[in-house]
């Protein structure tokens, strides 16, 4: 490993299964840059994803990568971090993976505050199953499963995360690479659970939330915004105007590992043979 890392150090030779023009390319490339900029060694990165177009990303990142089942990336990532807190643990999923099937895990991972970075690649549709509505689809969105228009209100995952006690909250846009790299770097560097929702357009199925739509309907928080003010974060996120981008909230709070692990030694390096006299003293209680 060279002393200075470049995004290429995190690249695999695996050919992509994403459609040309997919927003997910922007997420992948920003992630590689962020990891390189932070000087992370691929051997110390554990990357976990679920299923769907977003889930494919684990195959394109040169690290220890885990492609699990739909919606369950966060329990896996939480356990990886508990098992070895020396690893940089990143999880990624889509709006369906994280906010639908994995919604329960999402809320509880946030609540536990493990030092895990969670990237939600939001395209407001189910891409890999050919364009059905998702939890973040706009009301009225017409798809195969919503032929008369999606009758539900979209879910605001960041508000849910904030309510559940997220300690780092950001939103980026996959077509704004520089800013996205910056958000991801801050999220990965944050000690605690960090969520970065990335608006990542689906060029094949979502004809509403297009690149042009996001350029038109988003804005970046300016320097006057105070990301330590939780009430301001809520207000900003529930505002019905244009969609805000940037870091909404950050807070220092003890992580799950801080509280659950009694030992500085990672669990994976704990002695397995243990102390026989201590095992014997357990047995004595049953004598």
């Amino acid at each position, binding site marked *: *490993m060279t002393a200075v890392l470049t995004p290429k150090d995190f690249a*695999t030779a*695996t050919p992509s*299964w994403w459609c040309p023009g997919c927003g997910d390319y922007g997420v992948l490339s920003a992630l590689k840059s962020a990891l390189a900029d932070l000087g992370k*060694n*691929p*051997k*110390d*990165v*554990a990357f*976990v994803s679920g*299923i769907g177009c977003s889930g494919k990303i*684990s*195959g394109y990142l*040169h*690290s*220890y*990568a*885990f*492609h*699990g*089942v739909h919606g*369950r990336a966060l*329990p*896996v*990532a*939480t*356990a*990886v971090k*508990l*098992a*070895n807190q*020396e*690893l940089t643990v990143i999880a990624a999923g889509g709006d369906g993976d994280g906010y639908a099937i994995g919604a*329960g*895990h999402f809320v*509880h991972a946030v609540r536990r505050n493990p030092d895990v970075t969670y990237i939600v690649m939001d395209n407001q549709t189910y891409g890999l199953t050919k364009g059905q509505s998702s939890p973040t689809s706009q009301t009225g969105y017409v798809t195969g499963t919503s032929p008369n228009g999606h009758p539900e209100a979209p879910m605001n995952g960041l508000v849910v995360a904030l309510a559940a006690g997220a300690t780092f909250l950001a939103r980026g846009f996959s077509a704004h690479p520089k800013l996205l790299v910056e958000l991801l770097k801050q999220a990965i560097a944050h000690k605690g659970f960090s969520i970065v929702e990335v608006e990542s357009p689906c060029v094949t199925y979502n004809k509403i939330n297009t690149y042009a739509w996001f350029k038109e309907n988003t804005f970046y928080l300016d320097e006057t915004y105070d990301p330590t003010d939780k009430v301001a974060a809520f207000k900003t996120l529930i505002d019905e105007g244009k969609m805000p981008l940037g870091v909404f909230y950050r807070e220092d709070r003890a992580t799950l590992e801080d509280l*659950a*692990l*009694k*030992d500085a*030694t990672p*669990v*994976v*390096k*704990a*002695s*397995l*043979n*243990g102390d*026989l006299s*201590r*095992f*014997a003293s*357990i*047995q004595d209680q*049953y*004598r």
Partner: protein
Amino acid sequence: MIVNSIEIMFGGQAGDGSLTTGDLIAGVFKRMGLEVYTYKDFPSRIRGGHTNYVIRAQQRENYGMADMVDCLVAFDLEAVEAHIEEMRPGGFIIFDNTSEQIPAEIKRSDINWYEVPLAKIAKEELKAEIVRNTISLGVLGALIGMDPEVMHGEVAALWKRKGDKVVEMNVGAVIAGERYVKEQFGDRPSGYSLTKSVDGDRLLMMGNDAIAYGALVAGCRFMAGYPITPATDILEWMAKYLPRHGGVAVQAEDELAAINMTIGAAFTGVRAMTATSGPGLSLMTEAIGLAGVLEIPVVIVECARAGPSTGMPTKTEQSNLNHIIFGGHGEIPKAVISPGTVEESFYFAALALNLAEKYQMPIFLLTEQALCQSKATLPLLEFEALEIDRGKLIGHNGHTNGNGNGKVVFGEYKRFAHTEDGVSPRVIPGVDGGMHLAAGSEHNDAGVITENVKNRAKMMEKRMRKLESMREDLPKGNIFGDPSAEVAIIGWGANRGPIVEALDRLAAAGTKTRFLQMRTLWPFPEDEVRDFIKGAKHVFVVENNFTGQLDRLIRVVVGPLEYMHSVRKYNGRAFRPIEIIEPIERALSSTVLART
């Protein structure tokens, strides 16, 4: 006079203290040098509802209940009404008649009645309502001819941790009970006598504790679970002990999270397990398939209870065998091992962890409520002799946990390399050069997702080959009885106890039998079963379910056998020996087909 053989049932409302008192007397009997088995039969509620706790003590080994109850300690009338029919003629009932009386119509004349106002004595004489149960121990002790000194000594020892005052109060309560018997019933013997013999330095342990303890000693350092009866004890035990040994236990938000966390920890290189029961297993099924295809070593303890759906959470059943073996979409290698005693539970937990890592697949430790929540006496455990075999693990450099400590070279290392035994060298995050994708979708030997037809077939074969490679490492069944007997019995799990007892009694009545306690249920030990039933004219498969799941499995694998009979029980309670003896005798004396 019946010496050193008794089955006592404590019955009352949940919260009355039947379980605590039962535990206490179980401890006393163990200290007296007797063999003890306990069986909890409690409702799925916290307060109220009839609860009972069976404690069987005798000189000879026993891992199950007797045919009938010798002594019922009834804290209320409901307990008498519920269990009067299970009483052995000649047995006796201790009844708290403080506020209720026994109606004449249920008062069987072939049992002895000892009515004692336990609550009244506790309140008026001892000024402590809490000792009502301990008074019943004094009454019981006096009625079964126990040496008072032994009883007082043991009660004092059991309460010692709580301080002198508590010891004094409880010994006082025992004495009050003994005195009441002397005053009211004189030296009228109950017909039972329990005497102290040598305490051979043994343990009294619950099955779930043995599993957790065995796993800890064998290097389990991560557990995730979701509370569910009757498996919760394992998570609670681990939550107490894992942090003290460098590990961590997590109460997950649900079973899906629990199994995925277990997989995540195992992927990271920690020996990891989860424990659940039927409904939880259903939820875990998705991720168990993932562990199979990712070749990640996880141990899933299944503490079976009565289903389907939420069924009867606190009752025993063996109806999840089909689910464990055949559940899940697609096909993965997995193994199912099942202990028949508390002692085996300890060693099987350790074995499961070794098998999981050696063969990199999900291993099920299958037990059921009648074993996992029962206590039994057992010899001291030989934990010093336990070997930890981590298989083909390439751990951190200088990391002493792995017995494979080699280096890996990126570009050359293939996580899912094709090998003769189907097991590929496993590398964990943090090891340089081992970076790879663990993909739940079909992948090639390097972990790259592919739907190539040749690769698919080869990968399936590689994974399933492990089932053959592991055969020698799987526990063989235990064989009991007369090897030349023409009547063969097959069963697993908690039924070992009542079946072994049935063998002796069938033999005494002139029917020679042999019994195979299956300890590996999957991959199905075809040769073992075939060898065992060779020469048998009748085969009886004993199990706690309605459809005869093991019976059917044997018919499918070994062949249709018209001389096979299924002995089934599915009312939520464990077999009593007579419930095995009678159907066998009935079948043999009728015109059922025998192998000719």
